[in-house]
Structure formats: C-alpha cells, structure tokens
C-alpha cells in the first residue's frame, strides 16, 4: 500500500508540476503581451500638446489683431493666423481628438466656438483697426478656453497615466508571482527528474544484475536449455545443450531447430515444440538421441514449455535432461523381471511334472498287486517256456541250444530283476527317498531289445521296427521304466493283433520330445472304450477271449508320467496307435 502510494505520488507530482508550469507560463506570457501592448503611446495621449498649440494659435491670432489695430500687420497675416486657428479646430473635431474632448466634457463649448469661428465675416482686403478690434473681442474667450482645456487635459491624462501605471504594476506583480511559481514547479520537476534518473539507474543496475544472474544460472545448469521464438528460431543454447548435442551456441542460435539437429525434426519432438508454441506444456521421456552413427544413443527427458509475455506466447523453452542412467536401470529391471518370470514358469513346470510323477507313482502302488501279476507274467512265461523246452529236450539238447535257452531265461529274469529294482525305486520315490532316476537313454536301443524279446515270445506275429535316420532318440528317462512301457505297449499290440498281421513300432521326434508309436491293424477299440483304456482293471469289448489283467496300459502311462512323459492313444485312422512321449535329453533346442 505504501509502495503504491509512493509510486502514485511519483507519477502525479510531476504531472501536476508540468500542468502548473504550463498554466503559469501561459498566464505570464499573456500578461506580458498585455503590458507590451499597453506600453505603446498613442498620439492621442499627447492631447496636452494639442491644447497647448491650440491656445498658442488663439493667442497669436489675438496678438495679430492687436498688431492690426496698431497697423503693424496686414490682412494676409490675420488670415494666416485665422487659418492656423481653424486648423486647430479641424484637428480637435476629428478622430481621437474629438473623442478626448468629449471625455473631458468640453465638446459643447468647442462646438459653439467652432460655430463662432465659422460665422466670422470674410476678411476684407483693407482691414481697418476697428474691424481688427471687433475680431479681437469676438475671439477674446478663445485663449482662456484652451488654457482651461489644457488644464483639464493634464488632469485627465495624469489620471489615465496613473491608472495605466497601476494596471501595469499589477500585471508585473502577477508576472513576478507566476515566475516564482514557474521557478518552484521547475525545481519540483528538476527534483523529480533527478529522482527518476536515480531510480531508473538503480533499476537498470538491478535488471542487469538479474540478467547476469539468469545468464549464469542458464549457463551453469546441468540440464540442456534452449529457447525458440514464435517463428521457431533458436534464441538460446546453453553449454549443457552444447555438450549434449555437440553443437556450439554460435552454430545454433538464429537457426531453425530442425537445421541445428535432426533430433528436433523427429515427430514427437517437433510436435512437442509446436504444442508449446500453441501454449501447451509437453513432456517426453526417454527419447533416444543419436549423436554419432554406430554409437549407443543418449536417452533424454524433454520438457517443452511456452514462454509468455502479457499472456501472449512469444516462444518456447526446452529443458533436456540426460536420463541414460535411469533408462539403463529401467531396462535392467525389466530384464530381471523377465528372467524371474521365466524361472517361475520353469519351476512351475518342474513342480507340475513332479506332481504328475508322484500321482502316477501313487496310482501305480495302489495297483501294485495287479501290476505285479501282469508285469511279471511275461518274463516268467518266457523263462518258464525256455526251461520247459530244455527239460523236454533232455539229453538231446546240445550245449549251444542249452546256452541259448538259458540266456533267454536269464534275460527274462534280468528284465524281471530290473523291474523289481525300478519298482522299488518308485516306491522309494513315493516315500520321498530318491528322485526319479533320469538318465540319457536311447529309445531305439530300448525298442530293439523289447522287440527282440517280443518276437521270441510271439513268433507268429510279424513285428517291424523302424526309426528315422536323422532321429535324435536319446530321451531323458529311467531306462527300465522306458523298457517296461514299450514292453507293455508292444505286447498289448501283439496280444490284440490278428494272426498273420504285422505290428510296427517307429521311433521319431518333434521339437522337444522323443516319440515312439506302436501301430497295430488289430481289432479296433470301441469308441466308447477309448476314454477308459488307461484306467486300471479296464478291459474293453475287444479283449474278450484274450488273457489279461487290464492294468498294462495304466502301468505304461503311470511309468511314462513318472518320467515327465506320456502315453496316449492317437485318434482312430484305421489302425490303433499308442504313442509314448518322453522328453528329449538335449532339450527343446533342435
């Protein structure tokens, strides 16, 4: 409030002073012009001299008549004097003189005297003394009248002069007062001028200091700062901007931004600057800034704000911050998260696998008795048949045959032993004592072994074994369980195969598993049975008349699942195909 009052006073005081100054100056000028005009002296103001001359003319005429009476002058002389007096009357009855006579109130008398003068008889050539006397008497009052007129004129003129002097004195006094006023207002104006000058210098100094400080602030800022005018020309380019962009202020200021660097011509940056010039602040995060080819870019945060003057946008200011470190940290964090997610997926799958295996094992052991009776039957039958033949042959058997039969029996027993071990392993697995024994195992070799044995057990069925040449048949599994699964599937196929048909087995692979298809052209599985064939103790319609316990497929699937694999029945395409799937040892990267 005090500041406002001060500022108002500082503004009003000089204005009032100037107004007063002008008024006083005009006033004194007008007064001076008046004085100057008054100082002209008109001849009309010389009436005293006119009266004196008139009196003199009258007296000399009277004097001449006296001389005429004495015969000293002639008529011509009288006539001259008379004319001179008449000329005085002519003067007094004309223009300004006439008015003055009116003023002093002698107009009427003057007129009477003029009439007297006009009515005088024309002077005769021979002017007698008597005539001269007569004329003198007629003119006797004239000199006295002009003496009286001179008297009145003097008084009137002095009155007039006194009045004029008084008026002039008053005017001069007013002029003097005005001049004093002019001096005072001049002093006030000078004072305010000096004050204003001092204030202005002070403000200039402050402004300069503020400007210097702003300049220092901008130049020492770690952020890149640039400014553009409303035409888009660069007006400011600080050192941080120089080091970020590799362009000096001299190269940048005065040019269009897109000419300074291509970075400013990419769409988001160009739009942000255009937005700011329309009055909207824009922020861009992690803009890649390529400074040199084949070098990693800087990542910068950009903020573009409009610059306003009295509400009008006069340009834009761009703040550019090097956010490369923050960007790297963010990238790292994203990478870590991705790895973690991958890990979780992996672990989850492993856990799922483990769960599946555990469930299979549990199922297996729930059906242990049935499985034992089923699984053990084939090797026992093989061993039994070998031994029966040896007994039947008796002494007729040669050593080679004995050895062959014995080896056949032993192999069957060895398979039985392995199965027992594996089953025990599974039991331990179930009890949490050991993990699944998973080792690299070539499925082609396992199939060969199983096939050979099956041919021996079922000579009347043609068993064909195939595998692709380029197959990677090494699976990650328990070899004994794999053997058992294949044994089950193959014997199952053989069991349900019509006589004199063939059963084929083929090892192949896909992108992550080793696969073995057991294909038979035997009696098709009833549609309704397909969903139940892997259930324990299930025997389908086609199993009527065949020997079995109904757990072979169940065991095969359980064992496969224990190893992270699967046994499935492929859709019916005229043949019956069971597929064993086991994870490949070398993983999914083919």
């Amino acid at each position: 409030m005090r500041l406002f009052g001060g500022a108002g006073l500082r503004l009003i005081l000089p204005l009032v002073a100037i107004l007063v100054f002008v008024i006083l100056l005009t006033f004194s000028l007008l007064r001076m012009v008046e004085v100057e005009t008054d100082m002209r002296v008109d001849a009309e103001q010389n009436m005293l001299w006119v009266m004196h001359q008139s009196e003199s003319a009258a007296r000399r005429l009277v004097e001449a008549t006296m001389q005429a009476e004495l015969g000293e002058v002639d008529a011509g002389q009288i006539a001259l004097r008379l004319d001179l007096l008449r000329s005085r009357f002519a003067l007094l009855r004309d223009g300004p003189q006439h008015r003055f006579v009116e003023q002093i109130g002698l107009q009427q008398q003057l007129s009477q005297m003029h009439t007297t003068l006009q009515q005088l008889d024309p002077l005769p050539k021979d002017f007698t003394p008597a005539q001269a006397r007569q004329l003198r008497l007629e003119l006797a009052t004239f000199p006295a009248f002009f003496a009286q007129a001179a008297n009145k004129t003097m008084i009137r003129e002095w009155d007039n002069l006194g009045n004029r002097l008084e008026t002039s004195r008053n005017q001069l006094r007013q002029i003097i007062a005005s001049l004093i006023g002019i001096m005072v207002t001049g002093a006030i104006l000078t004072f305010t001028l000096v004050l204003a000058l001092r204030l202005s210098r002070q403000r200039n100094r402050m402004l300069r200091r503020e400007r210097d400080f702003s300049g220092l602030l901008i130049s020492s800022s770690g952020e890149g700062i640039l400014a553009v005018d409303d035409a888009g020309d660069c007006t400011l380019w600080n050192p941080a901007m120089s080091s970020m962009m590799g362009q000096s202020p001299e190269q940048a200021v005065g040019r269009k931004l897109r000419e300074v660097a291509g970075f400013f011509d990419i769409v988001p940056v160009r739009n942000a600057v255009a937005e700011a010039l329309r009055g909207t602040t824009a922020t861009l995060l992690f803009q890649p800034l390529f400074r040199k080819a084949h070098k990693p870019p800087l990542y910068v945060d950009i903020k573009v704000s409009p610059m306003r003057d009295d509400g009008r946008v006069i340009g834009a200011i761009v703040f550019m911050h090097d956010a490369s470190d923050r960007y790297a940290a963010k990238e790292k964090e994203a990478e870590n998260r991705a790895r973690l997610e991958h890990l979780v997926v992996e672990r989850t799958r492993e856990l799922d696998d483990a769960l599946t295996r555990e469930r299979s094992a549990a199922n297996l052991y729930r059906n242990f008795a049935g499985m034992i009776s089923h699984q053990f039957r084939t090797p026992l039958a093989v061993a039994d048949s070998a031994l029966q033949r040896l007994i039947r042959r008796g002494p007729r058997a040669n050593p080679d045959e004995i050895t062959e039969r014995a080896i056949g029996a032993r192999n069957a027993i060895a398979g039985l032993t392995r199965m027992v071990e594996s089953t025990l392993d599974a039991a331990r697995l179930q009890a949490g004592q050991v993990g699944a024994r998973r080792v690299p195992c070539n499925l082609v070799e396992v199939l060969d072994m199983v096939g050979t044995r099956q041919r021996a057990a079922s000579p009347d069925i043609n068993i064909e074994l195939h595998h692709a040449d380029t197959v990677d048949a090494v699976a990650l599994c328990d070899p004994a369980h794999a053997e058992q699964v294949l044994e089950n599937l193959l014997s199952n196929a053989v069991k349900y195969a019509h006589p004199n048909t063939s059963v084929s087995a083929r090892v192949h692979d896909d992108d992550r598993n080793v696969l073995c298809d057991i294909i038979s052209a035997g009696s098709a599985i009833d549609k309704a049975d397909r969903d139940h064939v892997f259930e324990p103790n299930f025997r389908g319609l086609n199993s009527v008349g065949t020997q079995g316990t109904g757990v072979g497929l169940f065991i095969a699937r359980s064992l496969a699942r224990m190893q992270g694999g699967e046994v499935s029945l492929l859709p019916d395409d005229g043949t019956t195909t069971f597929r064993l799937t086991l994870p490949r040892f070398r993983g999914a990267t083919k």
Partner: protein
Amino acid sequence: MRRLAIKSLAILALWASQAVAGDAPAVLRVSGQIANGPILLDFSQLRDLPQIGIETSTVVTDGTHRFTGFLMRDLLEHLDAQGDRVMATGLNDYVVDIPASDFMQFDVIIAHSMDGKALDRADKGPLWIIYPRDDHTELQDIRYDYRWVWQLSEIEVK
C-alpha cells in the same frame, strides 16, 4: 518665441515677394546645403516631380486615407541636397529634425492632397509630410509620429 515670430514674418515676406514676382504663390522654401539655395517652390514646380500615392492611417484621424504627393528623396535629389538631416518647419512654427536616412529607407512623401482633395491651410495643408505608417510596423512609434509635419512651409537641409 519672439525670434520665431520674426523669422516667420521674414519668410512670409519672402513668400509674398515671390508670389508677386511669379504667377503662382510659393508654398515651400528650401534652404541649407542645396545647389542654388535657398529656393522657393510653387505648386506647379512641385507637381513636376513624380507623383505617387500612399494609402495609410494617421494618428490624428480615423480610418485610412489616400495621400498624393511626391517623394521627399526625389525633391532632395532634384535640388542636389547634400545633408544628412532635414529641418522641417510648419506654418505654426512647429520645428523638427528628420534624419535623411528616413527618406532612403521609407517612401516618405510630401502630400498635397488627401482622398483626392487638396489639403487646405485651414486644416493640415497645404503640404503634409506622410510616412507609409501602415506598411512598416516600426513606423508605428511616437518617435516617428512627431516627424509628420503638417502645414509644412520650409525645409532646411543640414
């Protein structure tokens, strides 16, 4: 005063003698530093000089008037005058010194008629020194006003 009276009487005597000698009465006597002076001039002689007119106001009349006469400088040149001032005298014995420079600087005339009417001795005639007052503001001054000699009768070049 008396001496003045005697002098004017002498002039009148001279004028009278001239009048008797010539056809017309003399109206202006010129004396002082002129060739063959002093000389008495009558109207016809004065009218032989180039005649010019001046339209001006005066301080003793209202309005402007047209005065006809001859230039003072023409007269002085005609008479081969040598002085730097002129003493002008009126019939009423009014005497004033006029610098000769006035006649060079301004078209000062000796008028013999006003508004086409010959000036009368019973008014301001027969001759009246007229300054072109309205044409030059510096002439609107009482120091010039007193040089307007009316009833002019004599000029002495000094």
